[in-house]
């Protein structure tokens, strides 16, 4: 008999199970996937004293509304998220980066993310999920991972196979900061583009298109002129690569990207800025700044130290 579960009244726009993702499968066409915003994923699990690679529910823009059935459980929501918890007809405004004790019959209504894209919900326990290649991350394009490779849908039950009862709730004072520019290292086909095109890429602002998802972020505003060839022989891609197809509008590869591609690469977003990049909403502006490899490596070390520092402040 199913004892503990969430009953999904409204699934939200793009709600999936995610964890750290699956590696060493690029050569057969399977990308990393995993939580888009790695830092907020780690904070969610840390707030509940979970193993840091535990699965969570990721949502984008509008999140799910569900009712909990079962024994007491703790949850935490991270990102910049507007949500409510309803108990016995009383609604409480929720705060991110804080664990809550949830009881049988409580409703959690994740209305939306605030000026950001992705948010995370973790539980003190384990979801009943299928793992594929060591990860439960759902890749809807390849129909891989938990939930039969599908988004969470209206009316389904999210079954919890194990609950760990925590003695106290935890909290973190943390605000997700934004950065003015997304930093980029020159791509391997940098010299395929005209001077004007390169100038536009690094000096003008672009608008993030509505056609952006976990696979890629499409940009509009300035066409990047190609002076060599609009196609290259297909080759490997990684997340953060900025490809420019023949229409001149850049596309940034995100966590569920195709593993190979045939468009020239103007740049690659540095690892330290990936979590902030994915949180930029469609319709908002983005600007790039060119830096070199040693700078990018230093920035990544700093970003990692900052993440550890944030997590150490959980009380």
């Amino acid at each position, binding site marked *: 008999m199913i004892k503990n579960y969430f009953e999904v009244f409204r699934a939200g726009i793009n709600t999936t199970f995610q964890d750290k993702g699956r590696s060493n499968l690029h050569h057969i066409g399977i990308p990393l996937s995993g939580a888009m915003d790695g830092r907020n994923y780690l904070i969610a699990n840390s707030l509940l004293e979970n193993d840091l690679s535990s699965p969570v529910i990721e949502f984008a823009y509008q999140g799910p509304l569900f009712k909990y059935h079962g024994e007491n459980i703790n949850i935490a929501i991270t990102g910049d998220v507007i949500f409510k918890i309803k108990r016995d007809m009383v609604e409480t405004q929720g705060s991110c980066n804080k664990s809550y004790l949830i009881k049988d019959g409580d409703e959690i209504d994740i209305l939306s993310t605030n000026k950001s894209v992705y948010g995370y919900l973790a539980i003190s326990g384990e979801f009943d999920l299928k793992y594929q290649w060591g990860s439960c991350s759902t890749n809807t394009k390849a129909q891989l991972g938990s939930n039969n490779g599908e988004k969470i849908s209206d009316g389904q039950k999210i079954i919890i196979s194990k609950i760990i009862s925590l003695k106290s709730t935890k909290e973190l004072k943390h605000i997700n900061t934004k950065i003015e520019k997304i930093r980029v290292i020159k791509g391997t086909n940098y010299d395929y583009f005209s001077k004007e095109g390169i100038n536009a890429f690094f000096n003008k602002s672009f608008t993030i298109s509505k056609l952006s998802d976990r696979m890629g972020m499409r940009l509009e505003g300035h066409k990047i002129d190609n002076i060599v060839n609009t196609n290259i022989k297909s080759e490997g891609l990684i997340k953060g690569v900025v490809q420019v197809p023949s229409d001149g509008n850049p596309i940034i590869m995100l966590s569920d990207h*195709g593993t190979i591609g045939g468009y020239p690469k103007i740049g690659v977003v540095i690892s330290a800025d990936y979590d902030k990049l994915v949180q930029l909403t469609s319709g908002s502006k983005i600007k790039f700044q060119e830096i070199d490899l040693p700078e990018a*490596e230093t920035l990544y070390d700093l970003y990692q130290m900052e993440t550890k520092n944030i997590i150490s402040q959980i009380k």
Partner: protein
Amino acid sequence: MIKNISNLGDAALYCDFGNSVNKEINSKVIRYFQSIRNQNIQGIINLTPSYNKLIISLDLTKTNFNKIKKIIENISLDPNENLSSKKIEIPVCCNEKFSLDIERLEKKLNLNRNKILDSFFNKEYFCYMTGFIAGMPFLGDLDNDLQAKRLETPRVRVPKGSVGITEQFANIYTFESPGGWNIIGNTPISVFDKSNETNPNLISPGDSIFFKRIDINQYKNFND
């Protein structure tokens, strides 16, 4: 054998084996790919071989570009005879309900369908790489007279099992997906099996492929 190693962003090595696409260069890529994979090098999280490039992705919490570059520059490669290569037969049915673009190809190539199919089937193909979507093999080389461009407007849905051709390559759609290749038939074989974690791919880079023509009855009975 690698002509140049540069960085692709801060978390990947871009190993360039040259500009041409041929079996000889691709075999070098595959040899590096298999050798590096067999050595389980700390900090490497993905290897993406393609026609003439190999991308090595890194976990920056464990390593960095310069450390792995040094390892790759001094790596001892597995002997060629240890490289795995299978011979695989793929049945393909070219019934009109599957050969979605045969008429278009007749016009594009100025050949009749019998000529097109004769040329397609009487050949051994080499798997250069797999990817883009899970398990999709990129096979070559088609004869010169079969080389056609992609569809101008790609299909929103190409059926699972579709066998397509473009330029000097053939591929197989491992599951339903958007795509722009010229579809000439369909295979009843499952080329990618996600429930088989050890060997999800029927075809791997370096394998030899033979397409065997089957009729609609053989196709229907194939999975019985």
